[in-house]
């Protein structure tokens, strides 16, 4: 049995929310009455599956042989040298099947859907990575799959739309609101309210009503659990700082949550877009207020009347006006530090990593790289900065080309 499958910690549920899914005052279950009972059933099914060795074995098996776990922890010596500070280690989620961490979660939820006898899955997607990861597992499990995607995002991420269709999924354009990720989530919820008897809603981030934030965190915990073990094995010690980008927060919770009881600085990097001072960004923690959206209480970008605001980031995957409730609680408790990277800083980091290490990161992950490089520079060479490289950049080449034009240089 591999080390991956031989982990008792796959049953770990440290720092659980209360019975109604609250992390401090955040989270909960703010949904229409129609969804209350289906969510309770989902929670019971998840709790039961999580404690079932057969479920965990099947999940670990797929993570190993289908997803390609464990993913490497790579000591980026050239980047470290380039920055002249701490040693930078990259958790290579970009090397998973489908090219981003998202599949850790869709494998878990699809297994749960199968266990609950659901024949159809639905999902929302922004950049298309979660949609592709959902379409992928739906193809493998032979389930009908409908993915809601803002029409705006469909245009921005056309190759992913094509990928989903090739995988047999039906991509449904969303025209309401700003026609982006939040609106896709609204439409997926509208679908689920009417279809929950036979349909499983695979939410793509650590948000939504309880038990989604807990469930998605648990399915991604493998990222941080592996990285922790690998760092101890390779460097003989834990990292000093762990860094991840934050849209809704799934890759951040995946990396950071398993390290929360360790003496490690945890840094969440939000998308500062054109700059926090311009108002054109997606930094819900840095610039948001507490509010209720998509089934949970969390930090939101909204106006004073509670109307949700349009967000901006060069990376569609970070372009969301809220953040997972547990991350909001960890931020408010002072356990997670905030950082932010602008579009320009992310583009710069994208190029540096490409040139120094031969790796093209996703634009989402480029935000974490940008902040991680900045942090490493201020530290000494015997210290360690661990960065979650949550996805690969192939999907972003078009946008990077548009942003940089012919002048690709550092």
């Amino acid at each position, binding site marked *: 049995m591999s080390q991956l499958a031989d982990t008792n910690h796959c049953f770990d549920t440290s720092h659980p929310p209360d019975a*109604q899914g609250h992390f401090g005052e955040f989270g*909960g*279950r*703010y*949904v*229409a*009455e*129609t*969804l*209350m*009972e*289906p969510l309770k059933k989902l929670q019971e099914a998840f709790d039961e599956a999580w404690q079932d060795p057969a479920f965990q074995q099947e999940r670990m098996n797929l993570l190993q042989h289908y997803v390609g776990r464990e993913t490497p922890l790579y000591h980026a010596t050239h980047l470290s040298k380039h920055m002249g500070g701490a040693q930078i280690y990259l958790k290579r989620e970009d090397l998973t099947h489908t090219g981003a961490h998202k599949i850790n979660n869709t494998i878990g939820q699809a297994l749960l859907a199968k266990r609950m006898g659901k024949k159809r899955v639905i999902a929302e997607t922004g950049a298309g990575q979660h949609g592709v990861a959902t379409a992928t597992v739906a193809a493998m499990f032979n389930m009908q799959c409908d993915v809601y995607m803002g029409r705006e995002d469909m245009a921005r991420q056309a190759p992913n739309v094509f990928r989903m269709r090739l995988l047999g999924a039906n991509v449904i354009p969303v025209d*309401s*609101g700003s026609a982006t990720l*939040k*609106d896709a*989530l*609204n439409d997926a*919820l*509208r679908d689920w*309210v*009417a279809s*929950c*008897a036979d349909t499983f809603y695979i939410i793509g981030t650590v948000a939504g009503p309880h038990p989604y934030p807990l469930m998605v965190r648990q399915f991604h915990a493998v990222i941080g659990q592996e990285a922790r073990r690998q760092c101890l094995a390779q460097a003989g010690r834990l990292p000093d700082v762990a860094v991840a980008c934050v849209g809704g927060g799934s890759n951040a919770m995946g990396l950071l949550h398993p390290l929360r009881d360790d003496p490690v600085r945890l840094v969440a990097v939000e998308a500062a877009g054109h700059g926090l001072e311009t108002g054109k960004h997606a930094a819900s923690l840095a610039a948001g*207020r*507490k*509010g*209720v*959206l*998509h*089934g949970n*209480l969390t930090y*939101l970008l*909204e106006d*004073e*009347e*509670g*109307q*949700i605001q349009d967000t901006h980031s060069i990376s569609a995957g970070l372009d969301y006006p809220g953040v997972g409730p547990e991350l909001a609680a960890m931020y408010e408790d002072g356990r997670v530090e905030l950082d932010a990277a602008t579009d320009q800083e992310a583009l710069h980091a994208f190029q540096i990593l490409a040139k120094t290490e031969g790796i093209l990161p996703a634009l989402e992950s480029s935000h974490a790289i940008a902040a991680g490089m900045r942090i490493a520079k201020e530290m000494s060479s015997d210290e360690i900065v661990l960065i979650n490289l949550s996805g690969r950049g192939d999907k972003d080449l078009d946008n990077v080309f548009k942003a940089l034009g012919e002048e690709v240089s550092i």
Partner: protein
Amino acid sequence: MSLSRLSDCFSRCEQENRSALVGYLCGGDPSPALSLAVILRLAESLDVIEIGMPFSDPAADGPVIQAASERALAAQTKMHDVFELCSQVRQAFPEKGIILMGYGNTVYAMGYDVFAQKAQAAGVDGVLVVDIPPEESTDFDRALAKHALHHILLLTPMSPPHRQKMIASRASGFIYYVSVAGITGGQAGAVEEVEQQLTSIRQFSDVPICVGFGIKTAEQAQAMAAFSDGVVMGSFFVSQIAEHIHDSETMIDSIHQSATEIRLAMRRTV
């Protein structure tokens, strides 16, 4: 005293042997000024006026009411305008019920207590917030109670008996029975199934029960009125705003006329 006004409304309907007509329009749709004119005219035929608080992300609503919210927000409708609408309707109709309907973030952003205080001052009788279920409503309930407002709760075909019992025991004003699992403006639930569910809910509470979601014709309203205390129609009226968006006179006449016909159809025949 506003806490008795809703029950008086239902008692009057009972005496007249008919089911109450509850009509929804989104506050500020298509603009605060025109919205007031439309609601005042519609209210003539209603027993309870349900005024929507426009929200950017109305995830429980179908396309018709989503579009209403978008029109209202595009016309710069603020909560101040919505309360003003309520005040005007209250002045014009001292005895009719007024309830505010909307989403949790609107009331959370204002602060539950400030919201309840303003709603009471505007003559509102009850509040229905789609996405604050009883499990999350302790603070909200306290604020509403302090300002003599009913918290209108929902039950749906997905609510099992234990939830029917829990919600019915907390219900105040009336229970809003959602006829079908889905969003507003879709298909209505089958009449026989709705009737069965209402019989089940009535074991747990004497609070009036209104049926809504998907009711779009006088025939449907009549069928639901036979066994319910009230029938809620929303998308049906809202769609007429969209249809006559460029002709406000026709808009107002059309909504008024259709409401009058429905009200007549809802008389119970003995």
